[in-house]
């Protein structure tokens, strides 16, 4: 008893579930940074000369876009590593899946906060601008990607399929962006979108944005670690249930034959 107790003690001192010391540190840092972001974004930073207070939405909007696109880049890279790597690693596939889930959540946040900003700045929630439209289609495409991950099949099948879909989305994005830009350039616009993000950022505003980007990058790291570990356990539990079902079926068969 006493010989294994130091190890035991070490394990029990660790965070529960999917946590480790590293994630705990990242988590605390994230919370601190987000609190800072709220403080700087809502209180300390000044209102913009042209945009007024609506610029404050940018301090959460821009970091969420950044996080969402970062997540999708990670998904694409992991998909490629899974598909072209020699090991066809399932661990990489789970990171791709976890990252896509995070990306979808933050893409939704991005679209929602962007619409609120648009309502203040343009007077409308939505513009058929290339960036907005591409983002919306990217959002829908990754919902499709997650649906593909949910299909029946072995873990290797899921990984291969979703990796292919993940890379096809990458092919889709520039084409969508190009088509929407070409389409909208035929119409007026520019007058409305002239006020876009071209605000002259003063020191404190730039700093608030910087705080936001750091906070959300840490947040991504924290979420992807926890979520991919959870996906690993989901797969393990799924395997175990499958094994149990096979054993149960075999037992039934045995009784039938006897």
């Amino acid at each position, binding site marked *: 008893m006493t010989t294994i107790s130091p190890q035991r003690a070490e394990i029990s001192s660790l965070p529960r579930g999917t946590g480790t010391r590293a994630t705990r540190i990242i988590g605390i840092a994230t919370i601190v940074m987000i609190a800072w972001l709220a403080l700087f974004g809502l209180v300390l930073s000044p209102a913009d000369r042209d945009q007024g207070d609506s610029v404050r939405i940018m301090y959460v909007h821009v970091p969420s876009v950044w996080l969402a696109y970062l997540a999708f880049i990670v998904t694409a890279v992991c998909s490629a590593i899974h598909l072209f790597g020699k090991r066809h690693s399932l661990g990489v596939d789970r990171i791709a899946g976890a990252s896509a889930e995070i990306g979808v959540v933050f893409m939704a946040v991005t679209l929602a906060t962007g619409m609120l900003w648009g309502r203040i700045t343009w007077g409308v929630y939505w513009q058929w601008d290339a960036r907005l439209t591409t983002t919306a*289609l990217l959002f829908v495409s990754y919902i499709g990607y997650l649906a593909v991950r949910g299909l029946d099949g072995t873990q290797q099948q899921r990984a*291969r399929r979703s990796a292919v*879909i993940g890379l096809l989305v990458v092919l*889709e994005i520039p084409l*969508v962006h*190009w*088509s929407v830009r*070409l389409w909208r350039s035929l119409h007026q616009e520019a007058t409305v979108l002239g006020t876009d993000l071209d605000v002259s950022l003063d020191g404190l505003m730039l700093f608030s944005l910087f705080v936001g980007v750091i906070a959300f990058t840490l947040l991504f790291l924290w979420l992807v670690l926890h979520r991919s570990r959870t996906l690993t356990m989901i797969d393990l539990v799924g395997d175990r249930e499958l094994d149990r079902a096979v054993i149960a079926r075999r037992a039934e068969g045995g009784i039938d034959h006897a």
Partner: protein
Amino acid sequence: MAEVSRLAIARAMFVKDVRVEIRSRVVAHQILPFAALVMVLFAFALDATNVLTRVAPGLIWLAVLFSMIIIVQRTFAVEATDGALEALQAAGVDPVPVYWGKWAALVTQLLVLELLLIVTAIVLYGIEVRAGGIVLLVTTAISATCGLAAVGTIYGGLAAGVSGRETLLPLLVLPVASPVLIGATRAVEAALGTGGTAIAEGWPWLGLLSVFAVAFGVGGSFAFGPLIED
């Protein structure tokens, strides 16, 4: 077994798909009427002839997209019931020519569908095809169809087999196909002169459609194998 050339596999696949269609007449008897019906329903929804003439190009391509989803579901359902794709896989048949054979069959069916829809639009919506726009119209139809069929065949391969995947197909195909909808609609508008657009305005769109077709044609060749491999 002697090595069968890729072209022969593609041709065999194409002939098989077309023959299945000629015998069963599902496209002719069910999907073409469905597409025409959609055009009639658009007219009900968008009452007023001048609106219909204005938006006719977009409606044609929407009807093509929706019908394509059904055609793709149908062609791959035929494969799935016999486990034909798995059998091909097991026999070690190269998936690339299988992809191109199915692609060619889908292109053929879609071109027939588009011809019917354009005629329907002429009859029901009163659009007029001008002589100078015919080249643009035909090249647009061909390049858009090549792109759409490439996308449809990729995701059809994924949707083949296990039940419950059919509902996934529109969710996967429609976002990817949206550049084609935008491009083909604008190009056809230019060809028809809808809203006073000049024919010259259509050519950049044709560029987009061609790049799309090539990108997803190449992408599909690589993606199809891993997707149907089960």
